[in-house]
């Protein structure tokens, strides 16, 4: 029973309501307090990353111990996979909050922005920590409702329309998830994730099971913006203020979308071949269609949002390949390699996509437009922004020695070793087209010819530069994860929890 685990939820929740009270009276309190609380949470998550390793920490809320080996309380579980995602959420949350110290001065009602930001972080932390299925739904709703309000923050025409579309589709996803929870509770009579696995392992009705799996995949796929559920993503991510776009695209679609799909399909459901093939096909479609939709865009943030769909397709493709190999029961080391590539690409994408959105925000802050045809020649007047943007563009295209190269290499090697030659060829083609798209972005934004009125722009203020530089250093440092010793410490515990069928349940039921 580790008593530090609920701090991930309680600290941002208390901070949000403290900001609402004290922010009315003391003027500069809200921004520095948010950055302090998120810095504390980032340090706590790194502490958990280095001390978790192969064992799990379990926390039973309220102290309700199991009766006759049946868990009756709400559990919070921290294992290897959770520790990685918690680090990503809190670190990128801290950098986005620090960035918005100077960015949000343009908007009114700063108080509400920081309170909603802390609530969103509390919800996302709750989703990844909880070990109980309905608790995932409650925290998912907390974070997603905060993000509806944050997308519509500067109340112009386009932001309200984007928020409305996002809300209707998000509400539809929540109802599908709720029906899935109801159907699971009907047969398994319990809501604990480890206990559902033991209840389903004995005997189950195959058509019922497949129906429940398709409902859960549709619900969480809508949150993660996989094709064909991607319709809300370009509008919502391009109309939000820039630190919120970085949080949405860099963290939210991973923490409440991809993380829950991976956790449920590996640790709760028994892996079947038809569902694995479906997930792989959806990942491939996302990868290919996302990048083809992104080529013709002239708005920077819409371009980055479409590329988010494509990179998430890479992660789903890698995880799907691992699931297909596990379900056929052949070559477990290739399956482990594919899932390693997927999780590594997840971490990398959070870093470089967050950095790209912060760069787009810096460009919009100085020039005031988002159209690529109206920019040009910014490399001389904004050196920090253009250098970090160059690092991020090379990372996402997969150029060595940046981090995108190593994660894409692991995915393509795993595809070739598992004899999925078509998928490997598609991955390489999509990577080349991504490189073309980002070369266009770099040329039109930074290296084009300039005219006289562009010479008067200055560099952005210090908090924005600090966040961008720290993220670009992280992009370079993450490529060290491919070295075997560091990989053993960070990524291998996550893979073991996911692929070993008895490890997750035996530790929780036994405690």
């Amino acid at each position, binding site marked *: 029973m580790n008593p530090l685990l609920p701090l991930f939820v309680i600290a941002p929740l208390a901070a949000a309501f403290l900001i609402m009270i004290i922010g009315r009276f003391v003027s500069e309190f809200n921004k520095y307090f948010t950055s302090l609380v998120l810095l504390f949470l980032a340090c706590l998550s790194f502490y958990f990353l280095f001390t978790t390793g192969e064992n799990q920490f379990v926390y039973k809320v309220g102290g309700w111990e199991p009766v006759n080996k049946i868990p009756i309380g709400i559990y919070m579980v921290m294992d290897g996979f959770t520790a990685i995602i918690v680090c990503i959420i809190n670190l990128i949350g801290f950098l986005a909050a620090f960035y918005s110290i100077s960015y949000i001065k343009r908007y009114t009602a700063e108080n509400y922005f920081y309170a909603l930001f802390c609530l969103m972080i509390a919800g996302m932390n709750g989703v990844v920590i909880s070990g109980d299925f309905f608790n995932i739904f*409650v925290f998912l*709703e907390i974070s997603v409702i905060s993000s*509806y309000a944050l997308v519509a923050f500067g109340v112009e025409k386009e932001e309200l329309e984007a928020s409305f579309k996002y809300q209707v589709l998000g509400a*539809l996803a*929540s109802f599908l998830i709720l*029906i899935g929870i109801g159907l699971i509770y009907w047969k398994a009579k319990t809501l604990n994730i480890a206990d559902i696995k033991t209840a389903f392992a004995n005997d189950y009705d195959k058509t019922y099971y497949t129906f429940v799996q398709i409902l859960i995949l549709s619900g969480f796929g809508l949150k993660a913006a996989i094709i064909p559920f991607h319709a809300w993503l370009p*509008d919502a991510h391009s109309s939000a203020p820039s630190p919120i776009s970085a949080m949405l695209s860099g963290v939210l679609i991973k923490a409440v979308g991809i993380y829950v799909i991976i956790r449920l399909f590996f640790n709760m459901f028994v892996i079947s071949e038809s569902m694995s093939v479906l997930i792989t096909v959806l990942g491939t479609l996302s990868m290919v269609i996302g990048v083809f939709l992104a080529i013709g865009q002239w708005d920077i943030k819409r371009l980055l949002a479409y590329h988010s769909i494509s990179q998430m397709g890479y992660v789903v493709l890698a995880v799907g390949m691992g699931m297909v190999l596990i379900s056929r029961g052949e070559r477990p080391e290739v399956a482990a390699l594919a899932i390693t590539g997927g999780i590594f690409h997840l971490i990398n994408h959070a870093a470089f996509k967050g950095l790209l959105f912060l760069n787009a925000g810096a460009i919009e802050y100085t020039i005031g437009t988002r159209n690529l045809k109206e920019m040009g020649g910014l490399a001389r007047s904004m050196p920090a922004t253009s250098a970090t943007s160059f690092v991020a563009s090379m990372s996402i295209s997969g150029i060595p020695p940046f981090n995108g190269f190593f994660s894409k290499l692991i995915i393509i090697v795993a595809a070739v070793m598992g004899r999925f030659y078509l998928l490997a060829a598609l991955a390489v083609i999509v990577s080349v087209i991504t490189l073309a798209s980002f070369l266009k972005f770099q040329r039109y934004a930074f290296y084009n010819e300039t005219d006289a009125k562009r010479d008067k722009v200055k560099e952005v203020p210090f908090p924005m530069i600090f966040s961008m530089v720290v993220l670009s250093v992280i992009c370079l440092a993450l490529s060290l994860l491919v070295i075997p010793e560091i990989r053993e410490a960070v990524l291998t515990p996550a893979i073991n929890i996911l692929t070993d069928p008895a490890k997750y349940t035996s530790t929780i039921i036994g405690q």
Partner: protein
Amino acid sequence: MMPYIMCFILFLVGLYGVITRRNLVKIAVSLSIMEISTFLFFALIGYIDGGVAPIVDPADPVKTYVDPLPQALVLTAIVIGLATTSMLMAIIIRLYRKYGTFDIREIKNLRG
């Protein structure tokens, strides 16, 4: 079997409303109908034959009770549905102020 089919038909009625109606407020009301059908389905799951409402009477404590866990889950979900609906209504009021119409075919600034 009949109550479950009724819940499913109510869900389909709500889904039809979200897809085909043009007025923004009607879309929000159809979403509310969909979520109410989900709550009904949840509350029906915990029924045991011959059970009474799960309130403990200190004079006569041993009886067959209906399962109280889905009822607690439905209470939480009702509050979440309230938050979602009120958020949607706030956005609809501001949309009417900016665009001047409730018709969803006129609100098409973002495309491509």
